[in-house]
């Protein structure tokens, strides 16, 4: 089945300038996202994993214009063709934001404690032009039913709810303007294990019912693998590997993916696999190592890794990796959705 392309992201870059001194001289950049190219398809869940500081959250924010990218192109496809979101005018941006919504990590900070739920929920609806009060209320009650909560919760304050309930409310708020894409930034990491499962299952159900596309950002690979169709592994603002979630687990190609997978404790007794312990820490995103950004911690580091930046290569259909170990494989410079077969 031909998959429909939703986002076509090429060489996305987001630098945060560091300014110092009285004249606020530009002394360097925090290179949070540095050259990310990926295609997102309709109705899929693209999982994004990596350690803290790898740029996964900035990536999520950049493609929905919460942070304006400093370079690269983000093409958003809809009925009227593709459009670069960085070049949209205000009207187009408003329309785009209605279609792409975000669920944030910490449900305790995402709801204004001074406002009743209904007040927090009305804002987006008003902004997107639903003027009739009764109609707004109908929509709000409907989304609360979708996330399995009581519609009367609208008249309560956030402090009356537990973490799991708050995260449901945050999901409901993201759904009320009828988006096609949800960017979920660590939606369950602040929740307890027994509540986590409830929220994950709910998100899967909503995706099926509403035909949503998810960008699921998390540091917990087991959660990402459970949720995602494809997984993108990031390290220091670069993409290390993209593959179907099963393939990524069965045949991790990049040494970083291997180490990441082996570091995750599995709740099965005696399932002790060979653990690859990564030495040291993640390098600074201000002074990135030359060549491959991972070479300082890589156990398969070669001489050329220290000088040359590896390019993305396709080693199997839909399985792309940026590592000099696979230099023999076919080079893929531009990610093209048409090349993938399902």
């Amino acid at each position, binding site marked *: 089945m031909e998959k429909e392309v939703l986002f076509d992201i090429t060489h996305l870059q987001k630098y945060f300038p560091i300014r110092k001194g009285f004249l606020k001289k530009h002394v360097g950049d925090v290179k949070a996202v540095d050259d990310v190219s990926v295609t997102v398809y309709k109705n899929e869940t693209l999982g994004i994993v990596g350690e803290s500081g790898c740029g996964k959250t900035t990536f999520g924010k950049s493609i929905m214009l919460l942070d304006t990218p400093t370079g690269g192109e983000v093409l958003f496809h809809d009925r009227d063709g593709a459009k670069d979101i960085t070049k949209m005018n205000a009207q187009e941006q408003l329309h785009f934001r209605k279609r792409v919504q975000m669920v944030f990590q910490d449900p305790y900070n995402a709801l204004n404690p001074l406002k009743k739920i209904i007040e927090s929920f009305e804002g987006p609806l008003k902004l997107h032009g639903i003027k009739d009060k009764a109609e707004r209320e109908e929509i709000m009650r409907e989304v609360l039913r979708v996330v399995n909560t009581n519609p009367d919760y609208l008249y309560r304050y956030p402090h009356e709810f537990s973490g799991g309930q708050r995260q449901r409310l945050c999901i409901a708020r993201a759904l009320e303007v009828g988006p096609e894409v949800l960017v979920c930034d660590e939606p369950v990491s602040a929740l307890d294990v027994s509540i986590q499962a409830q929220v994950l299952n709910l998100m899967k159900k909503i995706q099926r019912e509403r035909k949503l596309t998810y960008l699921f950002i998390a540091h917990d690979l087991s*959660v990402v693998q459970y949720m995602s169709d494809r997984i993108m592994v990031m390290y220091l603002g670069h993409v290390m590997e993209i593959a179907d979630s099963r393939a990524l*687990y069965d045949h991790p190609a990049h040494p970083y993916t291997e180490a990441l997978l082996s570091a995750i404790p599995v709740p099965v007794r005696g399932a002790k696999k060979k653990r690859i312990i990564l030495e040291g820490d993640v390098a600074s995103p201000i002074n990135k190592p030359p060549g491959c950004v991972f070479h300082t911690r890589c156990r398969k580091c070669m001489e050329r890794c220290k000088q040359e930046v590896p390019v993305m290569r396709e080693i199997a259909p839909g399985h792309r990796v940026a590592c000099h170990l696979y230099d023999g494989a076919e080079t893929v410079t531009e990610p093209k959705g048409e090349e993938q077969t399902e």
Partner: protein
Amino acid sequence: MEENTILRVRKLNTSFKTEDGIIPIVKDVDFDVKRGSILAIVGESGCGKSVTMNSICRLLGKNAEIQAEAIDYMQQEADGSIRTVHMKDLTNTSKEMRALRGKEISMIFQDPMSSLNPVYKVGRQVMEALLQHNKMSKQEAMARVIEMFKQLGIPDPENRVNNYPFEFSGGMKQRVVIAIAMINNPQLLIADEPTTALDVTIQAQIMELMVRLKEEQQKTIILITHNMGLVAETADEVAVMYMGRVVETGSADQIFANPAHPYTSALMQSVPVLGAMEEGKELATIPGQTPNPKDVTDGCEFANRCDKCMECCKTGLVGNHEIEPGHFVRCHLYRKS
């Protein structure tokens, strides 16, 4: 009593005085810790696992009331004999308690970012713990600190002792915190969620270090965690807690092979297992949410969320049943008829 027990806790009850009255947080907790083993205490937030440990170390505020039948610590003397310290009789600030805390029993806390003082050099902070319990010069103490840093895998220890905490990464800060806990060569280490604030690759480094401490130096470790994966990979014994009670105890092999309490098995099924999920299969969930401790009613604490709840679960106390040697479950399902 078993020969190589290091810590024995019987009927520990901790409650807090609040505006809403006295709220019991830890209820009738019993457990033994074997010398040279890792005991994992597992449970979700609010289940009382941290309060249990803080009650043992007497690190709770004035509004806490601790009662116990026994909290016995078997201290190994220099000549190899064992002296039993009855910790339940000691007060928070008594001389004996202070001699024990940090010297015999040490704690590693969850958040390395806030367990270190940002305005002192790390070397001085580690040294402070050493000077508290030993008479020695600062030079001698600093040499010991550097030795400790080396042992824990902190690179370039001679210079690193003169750095401030902000100059360390999260994983390195946690090593400094472990150094503070280890510097007096304690026999019992209590690690309260030691890796929750860290990335998985760093978590793997720290857990490897903890297992090494157990294997090479025969340390006893109580690991408080909510991560079943860490438990499976490191623990020898497991105690599962829910709403202030230990609902299941046993060896890690027993608990993972045969999770008997409905809460334990539900907890295990509700975490996604890497690579073992069947396509399209949903995670098992525990309905509802953990109740507020002040609303807990009579009967089994888990009754209102349990899918095997029976009429008898709703009232009265639930007995602790031994279903195989050393494997105890607090559930009516295992009541001998």
